[in-house]
């Protein structure tokens, strides 16, 4: 496996909520101002720490949803039942309120705009977040690297960034997969990701694309196995799995 260095010490910084956007009924994008933010790569994540008045604190990790933009940092947080941090972030936090944040973390599951290999992104549910950061980083850099995204969600209402992903973005092909309910007029019946989905929505293995797979463990296991079966090199498949770690 390749190596990537991320030197330096990660200090806790104060992040103040600037604005929020609803992505679905249960997921919200939070935009923070983080003075002194050192920048990050698409695909990296941060740790968020909340502290109560009596000193109790809780930490969770969240993927960055957008490329570096000065002191602005964007996260998309799925509110999880009983998630003490996610519920506060999506419902309890008001503009101007502080949380603590440190990062960026992770030097492996990243895409750099200087890279020119074709890219295949495979997202399950909230696993779209770090992959969306890659699509946005590509657009921000004016890169012409060809991207394909296969995005599996339960129903059309569960899509994050729906309007943005519907807008034409030359060089970025998006294939939605619905596992429970499809939009009207869809020819594919609802169902889990199949070999055919990744065969038609992805790149041929001969193109040797860089593959990024992110989602719940079962989804990632299945998608990575399909990519191997289609002939992709295991060393070209990077995975990130969401357990309840986003709670």
């Amino acid at each position, binding site marked *: *496996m390749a190596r990537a260095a991320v030197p330096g010490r990660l200090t806790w910084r104060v992040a103040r909520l600037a604005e929020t956007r609803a992505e679905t009924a249960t997921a919200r994008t939070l935009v923070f101002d983080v003075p002194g933010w050192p920048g990050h790569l698409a695909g990296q994540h941060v740790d968020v720490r*909340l502290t109560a008045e009596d000193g109790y604190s809780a930490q969770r990790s969240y993927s960055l949803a957008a490329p570096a933009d000065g002191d602005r940092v964007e996260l998309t947080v799925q509110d999880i039942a009983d998630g*003490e941090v996610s519920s506060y972030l999506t419902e309890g936090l*008001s503009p101007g309120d502080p949380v603590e944040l440190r990062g960026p973390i992770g030097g492996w599951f990243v895409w750099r705009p200087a890279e020119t290999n074709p890219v295949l992104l495979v997202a399950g549910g909230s696993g779209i977040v770090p992959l969306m950061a890659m699509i946005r980083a590509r657009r921000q850099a004016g890169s012409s690297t060809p991207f394909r995204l296969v995005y599996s969600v339960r129903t059309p209402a569960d899509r994050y960034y729906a309007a943005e992903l519907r807008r034409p973005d030359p060089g970025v092909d998006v294939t939605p997969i619905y596992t429970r309910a499809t939009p009207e007029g869809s020819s594919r019946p609802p169902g889990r990701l199949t070999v055919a989905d990744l065969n038609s929505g992805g790149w041929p293995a001969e193109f040797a694309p860089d593959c990024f797979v992110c989602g719940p463990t079962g989804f990632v296991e299945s998608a990575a196995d399909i990519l191997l079966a289609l002939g992709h090199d295991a060393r070209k498949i990077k995975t990130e799995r969401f357990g309840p770690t986003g709670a």
Partner: protein
Amino acid sequence: MGIVSPGFHGRGRRAEVELPPGQYLTEDFPVLSAGPTPRVRREEWEFTVTTETGEEHRWDWRELMALPSETPTVDIHCVTKWSKLGTRWEGVSLDTLLADVDTAADYALIHCYGGYTTNLPLEDLLDGQAWIAYRYDGADLASEHGGPARLLVPHLYFWKSAKWVRGIRLLDEDEPGFWETAGYHDYGDPWREQRYQGD
């Protein structure tokens, strides 16, 4: 104490158990890995210890099964913040595997099927602190959790408990592994919250 976030009270307080700083309890067994799950057949599996002088010690699956096993029940702590208490394993102690290995090395670099590596001081593998584990909770270890066998070294963050373990290189000098090269802490003691470089 950190900056207070107004209106945050927290629901994760459980006074009866002490967790390392920044961790929370989970009942699940989440998976963290960097690539596809390697599928390794037991007939092909082997485990190698290579000393600093290049001497090799090798076990196949049958030889591993013939060694005395232990059944540790341990708490595990993942750097992604979850902790799971009282996990039950079966495996062979590294004390057993290293008993006849002649070495003066100070460091170990674990390598795995699939290419993953992780490093730790050799002394952290000894004295009842580490196992090559092949059963979890009474069943054969599932491949997504590192089967057929993984390293289990529960006093360090769980990325040190390398899945799909294939061998150990004993070294005079510390050599950082996969996550250790990608910004994570070289040692990874959860009780000192050594998550990232510089912690």
